[in-house]
């Protein structure tokens, strides 16, 4: 088998495995896995900017929130049905990422991190400022009747799981295709050595902008899906914490690997789920994990696996 068929069968195999789990898992883990898959979409989006392009953003929650509110506000205030609302959410993320990308990419490194953090903070505050429409911290529930798409009730457990899997599968294969494409390879070249990529004649700014837009739009898709499938939108999802989470997931799973985001999300979700049964201070786990990962395993799970055994992992 060539490397390409190996990796293609691995990724399609994962999707098939997740599909079969729909009928095998007990209901608690079934619900969890649906949530994990949607959050993994968010991590996949983050990974395009951080893992493949080397753009460390501390403000991706703004894209997630843009998707979530783009979807939820049109449903709540304009009475849109789920399909156009979902598209509205994705489009809001697209527009926001174009604007943020154009501005923030004038900076790099530490300044880029702070600028993205500040933009995300403004988005969070704007959500609070328009509490009348967004219900601020408290958030609002999207009624079951508003979550029926083409006759399919997305609040029902199996439909929800399959919808999450569909979104996850599409985004995973999209990035699989992206990293094999010359555009994706150029992003990796920029991550490895920006100056050299520029010397070779690539338009670094445009490529980075493309990465931010793809990354932001995928993150917004995750936000919109999350709101739709779990029927809730709230300002919590726009806080700094939700910008740190995808960073944590991707670092844990392996930045710049395709399966890393899913592995990291899965692992961290259960770790936090487990800890929060013992203590309210469950974010301690996230803190310890971040410190240990930076110190000892900057490559993450899949990164180490790629380094040690499976060199062909994309």
């Amino acid at each position: 088998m060539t490397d390409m068929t190996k990796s293609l069968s691995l990724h399609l195999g994962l999707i098939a495995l997740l599909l079969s789990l729909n009928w095998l898992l007990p209901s608690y883990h079934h619900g969890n896995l649906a949530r994990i898959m949607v959050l993994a979409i968010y991590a996949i989006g983050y990974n395009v900017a951080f893992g493949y392009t080397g753009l460390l953003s501390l403000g991706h929650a703004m894209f997630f929130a843009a998707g979530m509110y783009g979807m939820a506000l049109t449903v709540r205030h304009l009475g849109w049905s789920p399909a156009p609302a979902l598209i509205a959410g994705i489009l809001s993320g697209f527009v926001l990422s174009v604007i943020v990308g154009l501005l923030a990419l004038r900076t790099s490194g530490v300044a880029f991190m702070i600028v993205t953090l500040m933009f995300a903070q403004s988005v969070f505050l704007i959500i609070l400022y328009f509490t009348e429409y967004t219900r601020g911290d408290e958030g609002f529930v999207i009624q079951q009747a508003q979550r029926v798409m083409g006759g399919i009730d997305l609040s029902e457990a199996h439909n929800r799981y399959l919808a999450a899997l569909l979104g996850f599968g599409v985004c995973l294969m999209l990035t699989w295709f992206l990293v094999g494409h010359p555009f994706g390879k150029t992003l990796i070249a920029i991550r490895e050595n920006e100056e050299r990529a520029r010397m070779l004649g690539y338009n670094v700014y445009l490529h980075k902008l493309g990465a931010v837009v793809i990354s932001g739009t995928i993150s917004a898709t995750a936000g919109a899906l999350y709101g739709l499938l779990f029927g809730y939108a709230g300002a919590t999802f726009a806080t700094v914490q939700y910008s740190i989470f995808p960073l944590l997931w991707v670092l844990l799973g392996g930045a710049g690997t395709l399966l890393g985001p899913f592995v990291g999300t899965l692992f961290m979700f259960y770790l936090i789920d487990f800890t929060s049964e013992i203590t309210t201070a469950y974010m301690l786990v996230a803190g310890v994990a971040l410190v240990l990962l930076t110190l000892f395993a900057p490559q993450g799970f899949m990164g180490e696996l790629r380094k040690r055994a499976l060199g062909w992992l994309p």
Partner: protein
Amino acid sequence: MEFGPYLLLASMEGAVTAAVLALTAVGLSLVFGVMRVVNVAHGEFFMLGAVIAWYVASTVGGHPALGFVAAMIIAPLFVGGLAALADMVFLKRIAYDPERTIVATIGLLYIIQQVTLMTYGPDARPVVPPFNTRLALPWFEFGENGFEIYWPWGLSITSYKLFVIVAAGVILLGVWGMMTRSKIGLIMRATQLDGEMAQAFGIPVERVYAMVFGIGCGLAAMAAVLIVPIQQAHYLMGGDPLLLSFIVVIIGGLGSLPGTVIAALLIGMSDGIISVFFTPTLAKILATLAVALVLVFRPQGLFGTREHD
């Protein structure tokens, strides 16, 4: 109250905010200036200072001033020591790589915050100020009887708040003196200019880094001890000082101490005044957006000069 006295009251409150903010931000700026790393856990060291001040003040009996003075000495020393330790254990090992340092200090942020939640708990607890006399402030107007001075009802400040402003000023002067007049300051500035060259001249750069990190976080703790009799100690109180310090340090020009102090005055005063007249959320939105745009279009800050590389 009329507009004039109201404005005076708002700017007195703003001055207290500005004084504490200046101390906190100078700590962050010092760390960035010398070590070229951003310490995201800075706000948590601030919080730790306030929490330790509460522990010390509630352990030491007698007059509130005793506990306060003890806290003023113990909290910064403890926090500074802890920060220096964190520097040696974590930051040194990742060779002060700017991006990895941010990720590691985000981790540190959650560790400090959550450990405080587990030990100190979720309650906000007050510290009794050492003295707290209410001082009425005069206002003047040109009325029918010509110029007259009177004391409007409600226009007052406590002696403790005045003390905070003065104390912050004294500490800042101390930092300035240390940086410009002492041997330690000279060593720090040498390290800031060229770490490798300083190392070649026998300066123990790693120990300087640990010390700078300790002093920077110790300053945040001092600011927290000053503010804790006005604001209560709470495990989530580190968020706002961190954000505001970021804003101040960026507007003032990364790593420039005088710029930081000027920006702290500007931001603290305007924050105090704006949030009296507008909603605080709107003020914060404008401030964060302004900062992001300053970084995008004028990365050297409003008062900074472009660096020569």
